[in-house]
Every structure is written in C-alpha cells, then in structure tokens.
C-alpha cells in the first residue's frame, strides 16, 4: 500500500465532506454530489453511498460501510466457543443458522471431532431453511425497491412458516443458537417433519406467485434486464460469490464443489446459473435456488438417519491449538471462518470472511454511468445485508 493518497481518494474525501455540508442544494458546475444513506430506505441497513451525479447519471460512486461495525472479531477474542456461537448468529441475521455452521465446523476440524450423521442431516436441513428464509425476503424486497409494494407482504407472510419451523425446533426464530461443537443442542420435536413438508408447500406457492407477479411482469423486465451487467471475469476479480457470481455464468457452488461433513452430497439437486449477469438474472437465479432448497430439504428429511445428535465431547471444551479455515455456501455467498486457536476456552483470533463485503466492493465499478433509479435496482439485486458487510 503506498503512503500517498491517490487523486481519486482525495476527490472522494472532499466529496464526502461536501455531502455532509449543511447546505443541501449545491449548484456545482460538474454535477451534484448526492449522499445515499446511511439512513435510506434503499440501502438494506446503514450503508452510505456517495454518488456524484450529472443530471440523473452517476459519474462515480463510493460506498462507505462501517456504520454498523460491531467488532465481532475483537469480541471473539475474549469469548468462549459457545458464547461466540450465540454472537455469530447475528452477522447475517436473515439466514440465521447458516452463520453458525462454518464456525462450528472449523472448531470441530481443530478438535478432530465429527458430528454423527443425524446431526449433519439436521444441520443441512436447517441450513437450507435459513437459505429459504433469507432468499424469500430478497424476492419480495426487490419488488419494493422497484416500486411494487405487494410482493414484500407475501414474502413476509410465507417466511413466517419457515421461521415458525425454526422456532419450534430451536427456540429462536432469527437466532437459533442450535449448533454445538460435536452436534446439535437437542433433537427435533415430534411432528416437525410433517410441519416442514406443509411449510415447503407454501414456499413453492410463493415462488410461483413471484414468478407471475414479478418475473413475468414486463415492467419488471424493463427495469431489470440489461441493468447492472457484471461480466464473469469482473465478478471473479472482485470476489463476488453466491448468486451474484452464478448469475454471471460462473458455475461455482461450495455445497457441491467443497467437501464438507454436511449432507448436501446425499441429496440430488442442481446448481442454477444464468448467462446474462444482469439484475434480472440475479433475481431469477435466487428464485430457482429457493425451489432447489425445498427439494434438498424434502429429500434429506425423507432419508433422515436415526441415532444420536451429539458426539462425545468434554463438558468444558478446550479446542486444541492450530488453525482451521472452513467456508460454506451461505445464502448471500461464500462465508468462511479462519480460527486460530492456542488451546484455550475461546479462539485466539477469529477472522470472518463475509460474502456481502466482497459483493459491495463491485459497487464503484458497477455504478459508473447508470441512472439514479438503476442505482437502486442494482443495489437491490446485489443483495447485501449490512450486518454481513460490517460485522
């Protein structure tokens, strides 16, 4: 990193100062500096984006994250593993269970413990349910960002079924805190599998509704097709992951490509990619992913092995010294934990790689030359969650 500040950084700094200024109407010769956020309906949380406009076109844009930084990695240094599991639920708060899994898997890797097959199956099922809950919200939310107020209500209505499922198994709708080193906290209550099958029916109906209401809508197509096109090589350069990358044609899904103790290999499912790389493709990809997740859940629940859900681990867990990196395909993209342990009750250092942080890094490149309403479309289609960016 050079110690001199580049011209671009200097210009960005001046612009942020200008955008903070009390005088809101600036008659500038080369365009208007607009401050989108941190409090703004379109940025999903407290993301601040400074854009310089020429009329309605963006000349350059600079995202400024950090308004929601909660210091997870520093907190992790002074907490024990069960306590960190609790905290880590809150990183990507919509895909609840998915945050715990890579962390627990990394700790299990260091300990050399493997959870019994029943626990792995249930972990995968809950992981996919978290993905469904997260992506259902995206499907509705994209409608709202574009002006269609109704789909988001359907999204919340049908998400309730999934959240109720998670609550009846784990006790918490948004923060299950269910994964333990060596397995799970407790087994599923009676009747849960039938309840899940009912909920999945609602999810599938919702997907069909969204397909009719939004995907098939010509206005939606006009707003999204060709907007925010990300070529595949650019996506790789910026480290995009998840549906953002798959919509640009990159056939990469960690569930299939990375060996993992979880049970994805025991189900028959496919990875959906799209060639366009525009906002429409990202929406389409995520819709198909929800449908695919329902298939995975049904297959796994149909073949749930019996047995215990917790391997033999000592009461007070001291994870052996070493380093472990585990990454999984979370709803937002690739999430990973790098744990450095020195044999204590908690990790020495825990580095959290979150998908939204990398997904947001493409915003300056992507927003050059687009119109202001397209800015909203692009941000909505990239789908980041602030807790995920800032940790």
């Amino acid at each position, binding site marked *: 990193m050079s110690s001199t500040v580049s011209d671009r950084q200097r210009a960005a700094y001046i612009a942020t100062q200008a955008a903070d200024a009390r005088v809101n109407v600036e008659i500038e010769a080369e365009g208007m500096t607009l401050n989108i956020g941190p409090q703004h309906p379109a940025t999903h949380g407290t993301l601040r984006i400074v854009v310089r406009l020429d009329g309605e076109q963006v000349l350059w844009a600079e995202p400024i994250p950090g308004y929601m930084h909660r210091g997870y990695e520093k907190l992790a240094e002074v*907490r*024990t593993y*069960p*306590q960190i599991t*609790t*905290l880590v639920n809150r990183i990507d708060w919509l895909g609840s269970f998915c945050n715990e899994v890579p962390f627990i898997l990394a700790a299990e890797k260091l300990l050399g413990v493997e959870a019994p097959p*029943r626990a792995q199956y249930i972990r995968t099922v809950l992981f996919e349910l978290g993905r469904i809950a997260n992506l259902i919200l995206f499907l509705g939310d994209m409608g709202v960002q574009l002006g269609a107020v*109704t789909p988001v209500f*359907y999204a919340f*209505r049908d998400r*309730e079924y999934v959240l*109720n499922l998670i*609550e*009846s*198994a*784990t*006790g*918490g709708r948004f*923060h299950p*805190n269910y994964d333990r080193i060596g397995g799970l*906290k*407790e*087994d*599923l*209550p*009676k*009747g*849960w*599998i039938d309840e899940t099958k009912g909920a999945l029916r609602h999810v599938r109906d919702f997907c069909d*509704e969204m397909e*009719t*209401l*939004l995907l*098939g*809508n*010509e*206005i939606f*197509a006009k707003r999204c097709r060709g907007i925010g096109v990300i070529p595949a090589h650019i996506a790789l350069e910026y480290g995009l992951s998840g549906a953002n990358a798959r919509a640009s044609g990159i056939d990469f899904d960690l569930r299939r490509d990375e060996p993992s103790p979880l049970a994805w290999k025991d189900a028959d499912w496919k990875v959906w990619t799209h060639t366009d790389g525009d906002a429409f493709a990202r929406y389409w990809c995520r819709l198909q992913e929800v449908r695919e997740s329902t298939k995975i859940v049904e297959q796994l629940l149909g073949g*749930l*092995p*019996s*047995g*215990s*859900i917790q391997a033999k681990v000592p009461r007070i867990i001291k994870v052996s010294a070493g380093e472990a990196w585990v990454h999984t395909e979370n709803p937002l993209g690739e999430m990973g934990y790098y744990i450095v342990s020195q044999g204590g009750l908690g990790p020495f250092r825990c580095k959290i790689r979150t998908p939204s942080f990398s997904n947001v890094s493409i915003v300056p490149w992507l927003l050059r030359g687009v119109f202001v309403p397209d800015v909203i479309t692009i941000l909505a289609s990239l789908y980041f969650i602030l807790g995920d960016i800032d940790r």
Partner: protein
Amino acid sequence: MPQLKLPGLVKGLGVTFTTMLRPKVTVQYTGPHGKEREAPPTRARGVIALKEENCTVCMLCARSCPDWCIYIEGHKDKAPPRREGGKPRTVQYLDRFDIDYSLCMYCGICVEVCPFDALFWSPEFEYSEARIADLLHDKGRLGEWMETVPEPLALEAGAEAKKGGKK
C-alpha cells in the same frame, strides 16, 4: 408493444385480485376486536425460570453468560446434619439471583450449562415494562416463571432416547 405486454401484466393483476379474496393472515393482537394470540412453540425462548431449591450457587451460569446479565450472591453456612450424630454440613445459600432482561441475549447458555437443572426456558414473552429497571427479575419473580415452564416435547422418530433429565 401493447400486444406483447398484455399477458404478464394481466396475470400479475390476477394474483393480487385472488389474494384480496382469500382469508387474511393478520392476528389481531390488541384492541376491541379481540385478543387473539398465536401461542409460541413450546421450545420458544421467552423467559428463564429459576428453581431455587436446585441452585447450589456454583456460579457457572453467571460465568458463561456472554452479556454478564446474571447477578448472584450467596453465602456459606452450616446446616443441620442429614442424620443423627453426623457432622453439620456446609451448605451454600442463595441470597440473590437476578437476571437483567434488558441485557439478556436469550441465547440459553446459562440454561444449558447449569449442572443441577435449576434454570428452565419458558415461552412466556409478555413481560415488557415501562421502566428499564423493572426488567431486572429477582429470585421471587424468576421462581414465579416456573409455573409456565412446559413439559419437554416428545422427539421425532429416530431420535436417541434422552439419558438423564437434562433438557
């Protein structure tokens, strides 16, 4: 353009129209129309209840809480021997057991970690207060929550039978 536009736009209108005619999902929580409630699932983490006779003031829950929201004070004292002619026993007495629900994360580590089954989850959630200080539940109130603690649920087919009574 008008010819191509019609189908998708019209089908979308159909979706909203049919939803208008179907029953609504709103649960009317307050007000004159009734106090409808959706009972939370049995395992819902609503409030923590304390069974005082089981507590031995081991402080494990207070130590493992990520927020340090449990305040415990106790003292050691001599209790009469269990049978005639024996030594007096040293017993821990619980003086103060407060849980500050304004800090509590509802993670459940304290309930899990307690070796003596003194803490239980209850799905009760309607205990909001007008003052934050009232969210500090003391021993007596925590004991009252014990009445709302449900029986542990039967498990799904294929689950291993639980050993011991640990929830």
